[in-house]
Structure formats: structure tokens, C-alpha cells
């Protein structure tokens, strides 16, 4: 069976609006989900689950959050990590202070805290656009981390703000093992990614993109800039917040505010530039790329030189490669790896008869 839509006619607008209009894509997606949910937990070892898959999923979710704001609504943010911190510390405090609160509820509330803070720091976007906003989001980055460090209440008065995530138990099922953590993370991430996909393909997403592409025209057709931008800020921060909570509860277990630093915000930005600005799938491709790059570097070095890279050199090499890739992608393929994947599919659609 060739990859194409031949013979698949869309009889209704409803069919035309599906996420995967081509049947092969639907099958591909279901197969991928089957693999991730049913096969991976059994074949992946602890290293793969804990050091690769879980962080890729979590950073993918954070990148998706940033992509909603930057890729779809066109508002640049350099403070994603701070909103992750809000989500992590928010969830921690709900778990700590409300007896018997279900984890998923605390997660949701943590995300909502991030959304509220996101709206606050999004306020200047009403008066300015594009990169001017970078300064407001830097304010969020530095201020939020500072608050979490200085005010002990947020970390239940532990030293330098370190928090240790409580154990997660949902309806009697314990989420301690890497497999269980992976499955929970995967579930949350897949659900949220689908919700995001639905938003961006409907009127909500069209409004964001309208504001991104031409704000005056958007306003003239009746889109309220303020409401739309703040909504994007809120939803984006919500996604980052949930990602931050998962980062604390499903990935590291112990986190401190300083861990959610500017460098992390930049990394998340790089994920969307490399993966694909304005692409849901690109967020995850970018996250996988950035998380795996150091691993690749080490493997590459080990196999050629026979030694691991000194940490110092590795980190500088990483800086150089990140920087060069950002420049490369913005110049050569501004829609990132996701676009390359799409182009491959389009080629495939024509294959083997390219005309």
C-alpha cells in the first residue's frame, strides 16, 4: 500500500477536519501509541526510561507550552523554566498542605498557578510585541526563582529551597518504579498534546496565529488582542507548569528553584526552533534532539577517540553546536525538523511516481 490519500475522499467537512486526514497517518499514530504504551515499558531498561524517555516527554511538553505562546501566538518568552518552577512548587504545596489531595488534582492546580502567574507577566504584551517582550519574560525568570529561594514557605522551609516530591499514588496504584512513572508521564503528555492539537486547529488556534501574523488585521476582523494574547500566555504557562511538576515528581524527585534557570529556558526555546516553531510534533522532536545531543556527543567521542569528553569541553562543545544549529535552522529551515519530516512525507506521497 502506498502512502497517499488516493481513493480516500472526504465526504464531509467533519472528515476534512480530522487530525490525521490520511488513513496511513491514523494507522501510524495508533501504532506509535500502541508501541509507546504497550511495548516500551517492557523492553526499555531503567536508563532509557529515566534518562531519556521521561525527560524527552517532559521537555516536549514544556516546549509545546512555549510553542503555543511563541510558535502559534507569536510572543517570545525567555522565561519558560520559571513557569515550570511555579508548576512544580505549586503542585508540591498542594500535595503538602491539603491532606489526601489526589495527585492529578494537585497537578492541575499547580498548572493553574503557573497560568495565573503567566497572565501577570504577559500583561506588557498588550502594549508591546515580539522581542520587547523578552524583557518582561526575563523579569519572570529572575523574579520567580528569587521568590522561591527567598521565601521559605514555598519549600516548606528547607535549605535553599530544595523540595522533595511526595510519592504519587493514584487510586491505590503506586507510581514509584520507572515503568509506572513513564506510563503516567506518557498519559498526561499524550492527553495534553491532543488537547493542544485540537485548540490549534480550531478557532482558538486561528486567533493566535492571526495575532502572530498580522495583529492589526486580526483586530480589524474582531479579534481582541488583549484577550487572545493573555489566553495564549495562560495556556502556555499552564503547559509549562504541568511539565515542571512532572519534572519534579516523575523525573528528578528532588528539585531546587535554581534548577529552573535561564539556561533551561533557553534550552526549551532551542527545542522549538530546532524541532519546529508552530508545530506540536516538532516540540517533541526538538526535545528529543536536545536531550539526546549530549548522549550522542559522548558516544561519538567514545567511538572515535576512545575516551569520554572532558566535562568542560563537552559543555563548550554543546554551546557551540546548539548555537550553530539555531543559526543553521533559522537560516535554512525556519520550520525545523518537523518541516523536514513533513517534506519527506510529501515526497513519499508522490513516490514512486513523482509526477
Amino acid at each position, binding site marked *: 500500500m502506498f502512502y497517499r490519500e488516493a481513493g480516500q475522499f472526504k465526504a464531509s467537512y467533519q472528515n476534512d477536519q480530522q487530525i490525521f486526514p490520511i488513513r496511513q497517518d491514523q494507522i501510524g499514530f495508533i501504532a506509535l501509541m500502541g508501541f509507546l504504551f504497550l511495548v516500551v515499558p517492557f523492553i526499555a531498561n531503567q536508563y532509557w526510561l529515566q534518562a531519556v524517555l521521561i525527560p524527552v516527554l517532559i521537555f516536549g511538553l514544556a516546549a509545546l507550552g512555549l510553542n503555543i505562546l511563541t510558535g502559534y501566538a507569536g510572543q517570545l518568552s525567555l522565561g519558560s523554566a520559571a513557569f515550570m518552577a511555579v508548576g512544580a512548587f505549586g503542585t508540591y504545596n498542594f500535595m503538602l498542605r491539603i491532606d489526601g489531595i489526589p495527585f492529578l488534582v494537585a497537578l492541575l492546580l499547580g498548572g493553574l498557578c503557573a497560568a495565573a502567574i503567566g497572565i501577570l507577566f504577559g500583561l506588557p504584551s498588550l502594549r508591546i510585541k515580539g522581542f520587547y517582550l523578552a524583557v518582561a519574560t526575563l523579569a519572570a525568570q529572575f523574579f520567580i526563582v528569587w521568590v522561591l529561594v527567598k521565601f521559605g514557605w514555598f519549600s516548606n522551609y528547607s535549605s535553599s529551597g530544595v523540595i522533595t516530591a511526595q510519592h504519587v499514588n493514584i487510586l491505590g496504584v503506586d507510581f514509584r518504579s520507572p515503568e509506572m512513572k513513564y506510563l503516567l508521564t506518557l498519559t498526561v503528555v499524550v492527553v495534553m498534546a491532543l488537547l493542544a492539537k485540537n485548540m490549534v486547529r480550531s478557532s482558538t488556534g*486561528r486567533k493566535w496565529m492571526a495575532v502572530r501574523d498580522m495583529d*492589526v488585521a486580526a483586530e480589524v*476582523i*474582531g*479579534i481582541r488582542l488583549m484577550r487572545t494574547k493573555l489566553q495564549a500566555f495562560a495556556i502556555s504557562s499552564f503547559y509549562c507548569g504541568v511539565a515542571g511538576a512532572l519534572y519534579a515528581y516523575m523525573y528528578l524527585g528532588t528539585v531546587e528553584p535554581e534548577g529552573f534557570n535561564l539556561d533551561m529556558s533557553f534550552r526549551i526555546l532551542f527545542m522549538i526552533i530546532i524541532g519546529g516553531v508552530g508545530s506540536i510534533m516538532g516540540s517533541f522532536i526538538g526535545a528529543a534532539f536536545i536531550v539526546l545531543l549530549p548522549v550522542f556527543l559522548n558516544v561519538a567521542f567514545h567511538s572515535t577517540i576512545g575516551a569520554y569528553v572532558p566535562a568542560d569541553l563537552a559543555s563548550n562543545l554543546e554551546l557551540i553546536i546548539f548555537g550553530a544549529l539555531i543559526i543553521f535552522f533559522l537560516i535554512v529551515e525556519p520550520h525545523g525538523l518537523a518541516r523536514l519530516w513533513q517534506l519527506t512525507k510529501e515526497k513519499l506521497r508522490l513516490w514512486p511516481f513523482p509526477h
Partner: protein
Amino acid sequence: MAREFGDVIIDLQNISLRFGGVKALTDISFNVREHEIRAIIGPNGAGKSSMLNVINGVYHPQEGKIIFHGQERQKMEPYEAASQGIARTFQNIALFKGMTVLDNIMTGRNLMMKTNFLHHALFWGKAQREEIEHRKKVEEVIEFLEIQSIRKTPVGRLPYGLQKRVELARALAAEPNLLLLDEPMAGMNVEEKQDMCRFILDVNDQFGTTIVLIEHDMGVVMDISDRVVVLDYGKKIGDGPPDEVKNDPKVIDAYLGTSH
């Protein structure tokens, strides 16, 4: 062609607009009647676009009154103008470059959509029904403007003439009662111009939409407009039916006489 027009739907009184030291509009008054095609002409920089921007709230004049549907309106934001049924196109195409033709036109209906982002996130029931319902309307517009074959194309890839048409489609999707068109035929070849003229007349005819039109091509203006306002250096120097304006010595002096 003696056509009958309804009441004045928008009345502009003594409008003045400045940008710093630049006087874009000085003491301009004119009105637009229901169902007419009202042209604004004048050399570059005369203030024509600014006039449209004042009508739909993009620019706020320092002086003057605007009476819309019999009500004097206060300082108004563009989205409020939109919700009162004013739609427009722009001199320099202002489409949403990253979106397809279909999505661009769908945004034109945003004010009529009642579902919120939570509905959209679930994309089930109400949200989906609404999306389909509006899609049908949009398909009507697409058919009307004969752009079926490009509905899934990203607008950035379209030739200039078609982009202009998509922009008109987006404005029409809002089912406006007042349509402002800023040089809809600029940069088009004769054939494209003829198409555009036909669409404008059809819109006016079939939907009864009132149209304010900025156009440089005097042939077109004479053909399709009912009344013409002439601006020069931000001042009104003529107002009336095309034939009358064409023969007004002041207008000939300032505009028609000189090449622009």
C-alpha cells in the same frame, strides 16, 4: 444609472487627524448612504487610507464626530467596529501569512463563533458542530469568489491578485453591512480588475452591502461608484456623483490634471 439609496449609515463630521506634525486629515466631512458604493480618490498621501482607518477605529482622530447608525460613537477600537458590522481590506495585503486560504477566511467568522478554548480543546459536540456550520458559510464565500481550487494553499504562496481576492473573502465571511476596500485593484492586470469589479458589484447587489472604496483607476471609479469624495493633502476638495466630480475644475487641477 439612477439608483435609490437608503438612509445615511455613517456620517463623518469635521474629522481631523494628525501624526505628530503631519496633518493627515483636516476638517473632513462626508457621509455614506445605505447600499451605495462610495469611492474615495486622491493622490498618494492624500489621506485616503487614514480615512478608512478612522472609520473602523484603527486611527483615532483628534477632532470630529462620527455618527454610525444614528449614534454618535465614542472612541472606538477596531474590534468594536468589527462587531458592529464593519469589515475591510488593506492597501498592503494583510493576510495571515502562515495560514491556509481556508483558515484565513475562517478567521473572518470569529465574532460569530460562540465556543471557547475549552470546547475547542475537546473538539467534540458543540465545538465541532459550530466549526462545520461556519465552514459551510465559508465555502459559500469561497464559491462566490471562485477560489475553490486554492482553499488548502498557504496564502504566502499565492500570486498577488489571488491574495487580494482571499482578503476580500475574509472580509465577506464576516457578513458585513459596511465594507471598506483600500485599493482592491492596485497592481492587478486588466482581467483581474474586471473580475474584482464584478465581485464588488455582486456583493453590493446580492447582499446589499454598503461599500466604501479607494481606487486610483478613474475608469473603474466612474464605472462602479455612486458618489465620489476627492481628497488632496488631507482636505476634501470634491464630493458628488462621478460625472460631476470629473468635471469639477478644482478636482481636475489637483488630481486629474496631474499625473500621479
